[in-house]
């Protein structure tokens, strides 16, 4: 599935992650910026990819700026940005939680 619009969720505060989704045609591509890239880069990408898969999004450009967020925060921000991008934020995807 492709997204309907560009969307943003999260802040640049410490322990948060800001994620932007925009339309893409080349699968899920993630551009990640993180101070903990060396130690947790793969894990951050995996949480984002897995969460997007729950929304059946398979073609999207992801720009993520991480400030040391924990997995639960990354998942929450990804859900929020996915629903905004799909324009489904009025119907929370409870099963994704």
């Amino acid at each position, binding site marked *: 599935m492709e997204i309907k619009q560009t969307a943003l969720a999260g802040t640049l505060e410490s*322990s948060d992650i800001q994620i932007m989704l925009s339309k893409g045609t080349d699968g899920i591509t993630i551009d990640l910026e993180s101070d903990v890239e*060396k*130690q947790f880069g*793969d894990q951050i990408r995996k949480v984002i990819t897995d969460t997007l898969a729950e929304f059946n999004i398979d073609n999207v450009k992801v720009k993520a700026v991480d400030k040391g967020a*924990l*997995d639960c925060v990354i998942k929450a921000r990804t859900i929020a940005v996915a629903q905004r991008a799909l324009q489904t934020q009025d119907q929370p995807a409870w099963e994704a939680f």
Partner: protein
Amino acid sequence: MKNNVNRELPDDVMNALDYQPYQTTNIGNPDIQRVAPSVHVQTGDDKLVDSIEDVVKATVKDGMTISFHHHFRNGDFVFNKVMRVIIDAGIKNLTLAPSSLTGVMNDMVIEAIKAGTVANITSSGMRGSLGDFVSHGNLKNPVIFRSHGDRARAIEHGDIKIDVAFLGVPNADKLGNANGMDGKAVFGSLGYALMDAQYANKVVLLTDNLMPYPNTPASIKQTQVDYVVQVDQVGDPDKIGSGATRFTKDPKELKIASTVNDVIVNSPYFKDGFSFQTGSGGAALAVTRYLRQAMIDNKIKASFALGGITKPTTDLLNEGLIDRVMDVQDFDKGAADSMHTNPKQQEIDASWYADPDNKGAMVDQLDVVILSALEIDTKFNVNVMTGSDGVIRGAVGGHQDAATAKLTIISAPLVRGRIATVVPDVTTVVTPGDSIDVLVTEYGIAINPKRKDLQESLGHLAGVPVYTIDELQKMAAAKVGTPKPLEFTDRTVALVEYRDGSVIDAIHEVKD
């Protein structure tokens, strides 16, 4: 070869530099021989020199060891002025042996390494762009990191033989009598620089404030000084100290600080005449505030406070809650000013403070110390040198030395952002776990199992949960996950000495 904290040390580097692996915190009672500097005899009438160029020309030659102090911290102008002249003079292969390197010196050190001016470095630490530069293998020879006490030991032993010391001072007379208290860019105690003044073959003072002769009180004496150079400005007073000390409002730091206070107050060492040392971080300053109240409530006074001094500590001195402050450096202007006005605030040199090879150092008399940590592992080993990415970004400082105290407390949050502070193995061992007694986090404390006596006195305090350090480590891992191991090359970029001069760990080039 492996040392006694289970660190694999590079045989080639260890052998080439004739180093022994770290074995024990116990210094013992060896007989040692100290060295003495050479003296070029003069009456002292011709010490005043017009320019740094002239004095560099007269003193610095290829291959020499030169030194600086870091009491101006990020307000230092002296280091860059002198190094500029040395680089431009085309001098090569120097060993740089400052008491430490601050951020304002980074660009100049990198330029000096690239130009071949500097070939070796020994320092307490380095941060920022210089730490990054060294961690990426850009200096051929490994940096030697030494604690403040170990630097004093190495100078007295002749392991560091300083040819020329360039020491910035906020005042001096034409023969070189100087202190750190009068003038524009004042920093209080000259503690670390006193070693250089006493042991360097050539001592060059740089000052922006030439005083009538004789200038007193004199911390550095005319008997030690070869040249006095007048410069326009030795430092930026606004960047020397941290300014007015503000108490933290961070609830996590306050929780840690109040728990540290609980640990101290309930330890067997909290009694009239006890002694303590705190650092300058937010939590350490808050501890001083809690401790003040506890001392008033329990009618207990301290015999001395030690180390790097801040205004909250000198306030306790003025209140009569501490009898003496033994001052090797001042972290803020309040503490620096207090040294001027209060004779109970004694300036001490780095040897008196912390040199293990001594007839008694102050740290040997210390009851309680509160120290910080970037990482602490399940063996209680502490890292204050390399960041979570393996890059050099810290300093040994007085960490290993002060950890000699009877009660050594590490105060640190369990996690910082996504980085665990309590880990299975620290990236770099700086202070051995044998020196550490209690870890205080916002979640509770862990007591070193070797301290059965403390398990008894601190094991059942109201509101202070006690965990094993393994439990705290697992708690941290459950929050942040398990990080991918850092990758390093085989190349050794730095060695960390223990305070006795043995090697406690090696730092390797990071792989990017």
